């Protein structure tokens, strides 16, 4: 990949957007481009118009359109099925994670996560050629 990798962050928390910015500012992921959306609806709009996205980090609980609704809509429209979507959940939501996977999430990331865990997810996706 010669162009800068692009990632989409969908979260209603400003704080989380800044966390992603920190993670993507250094180390292996430095130089990536981040797209920010504050709810599922905005996120879906960006997802539609940016097929070059390498991976989506999708929060579960959001106003307007939540993470599951995002995934369900994407599946029903079969939109960019090759882009891996990571569902971001909290520690005690095993049930949600199962529903997320069923709705087409590639992986899930549990809060609290570390920069290393996030980086590892990206590298794992690249290694497996989830996205070519």
């Amino acid at each position: 990949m010669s162009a800068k990798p692009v990632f989409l962050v969908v979260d209603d928390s400003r704080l989380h957007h800044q966390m992603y910015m920190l993670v993507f500012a250094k180390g292996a992921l430095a130089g990536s481009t981040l797209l920010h959306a504050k709810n599922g609806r905005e996120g879906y709009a960006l997802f539609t118009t940016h097929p070059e996205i390498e991976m989506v980090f999708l929060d579960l609980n959001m106003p307007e359109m939540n993470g599951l609704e995002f995934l369900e809509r994407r599946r029903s429209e079969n939109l960019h099925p090759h882009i891996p979507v990571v569902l971001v959940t909290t520690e005690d939501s095993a049930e949600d994670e199962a529903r997320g996977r069923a709705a087409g999430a590639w992986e899930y990331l549990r809060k609290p996560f570390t920069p290393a865990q996030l980086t590892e997810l990206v590298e794992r996706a690249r290694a497996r050629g989830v996205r070519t």
Partner: protein
Amino acid sequence: MNDDAGNPFAELLEEYVAECAPLAQAVGDTLVTLERRWEEGDPADQLFGTLKGSLHTLKGNSAMLGLTAIQALAHCMEDVCAFLGERPDLRPAASGLLLRGAGVLVEMVGRAARGPLSADRSEHFISEAREFIQAESVGTETSAPYPERRRFERRTGSEVGELGSDGVVSTIRVDARRLDGLLETFGETMIAGLGLREAVRDLAIRHRGAGFTDLEHALTSLEKTLKRLEGALMATRLVSIATVFGRFNLLVREVANAHEKRVGLVTSGGETQLDKTVIDRLGEPLVHLVTNAIIHGLESPAERERSGKPSEATVTLSAVQRSDRVILTVTDDGRGLDPERILHKARQLGAVAADATPSREEVFAMAFLPGLSTTERVSALAGRGVGLDVVANSIRTLGGSIEVASEPGKGTKFTMSLPLTLAVLRSLLVAVDGERYALPLGDVAESLRVTNEAIHEIDGHGMMLWRGQVIPVSDAAEVLGGSARASRNYCVVVRSGARRRGMLVDGLLGHQDVVVKALDPSLGRPPTISGATILGDGRVACILDTARFAELRATEASTATLS
């Protein structure tokens, strides 16, 4: 995970507080509403869902920052909510517990950026909550004490709002200290500009105005730019007063319960904006006024009903902007101030002559005298032995003024007037004995030329007729701790609330925007000086606390009459 700096996102602590403090506050506010609705038998499921959503977000955010104590607290409150989801019948009984949790949550989140947190209070809450769930689970048909049934409720509104629709961050947060630094630098630039202006004026005078037009124009354009820069800079420091008002829902409820009062809080004008410095220092005096109102001003529900009032009292907080000031009011519909009692106390304190017959307004103004608290009782929760004089002092340090109006049996209203900003002051420069002083222009009612004959000496006090009313007049030097001179040419009439007072000065030097510098407290200063500024020629001028002058001298005059 623990609360140390090893967290990879530790640098976002300030941002965490900025995002989560309002969320914690919203948890408290929502609970206050829920408590009422539940008591009325309304399960209020949608609002309950909002509450659970906020707690969930707080839990997640705290976890990311390694704030395990807050995370555990939010988690525990979620558990209580989940339990109440199964047992709607227990909701009214549990609201007090949840509100206590919300109080701890607000406090801990607010303190998170200021060093390690003690988990004492959160742990205390958690054990209390566990006991509640356990006690209520015994003998019921419900299977699990911690039913884990989380639905994906849609949350209304957005806590972000700062992201533009194009996905680009359109708002950034800046460390307040950087803004202070910027302001400091701006102040110095402005002082340099004033110096330049004086130098150009001198040059023009010396050379009879020849050939300096270009310089003058350049300077005028620089001054205009500085003016715009000032406006832009001030705008970055404005914070809406809702951040202060937000604290009061929980507080009012807590104080009202402790004192067996029923109180509803009404706020208006929360969107009104004030300088951050003013906002930061406004909370405490407002807390005093509101708690005082509840404890001392409001009657018990039974007493209210007997006098034909609704049993639930109302405390109102309001803010509104009037030109370059913000008017804040704290109103209650309680029993009102007792003028007889205030006057009696004031006489005991020797603050007013035994035979003086002050007007009602004057009596109410005495409520702000040191040592004059109308109740003997000091309340553990709110009274803290703090009198209205302390409140008035805090407001004055902010360059504001405060007055009170009251109708016995109907209620009391405190009105505060505060400057939008503390950094730049529109002032009137005056000359007194070769020194220059700056007077806040907002407090100047009029400045006029006077002759000796216009000042009447009554009982050793100067009086003059101004716009049909007799007002007291003092010599500026006397007020500033020097000795009075025989004659001055000008009188500046200053106001504070309904008070007017004349100050005799040698000369009026014109209007000027000055940059306020705080005085080193160790230097000591007369109470009538509120700060200092540097003028164009590099010399220091003191800023007079005109409101203080109007009030302080009035009481001194009354005391003097005693002797």
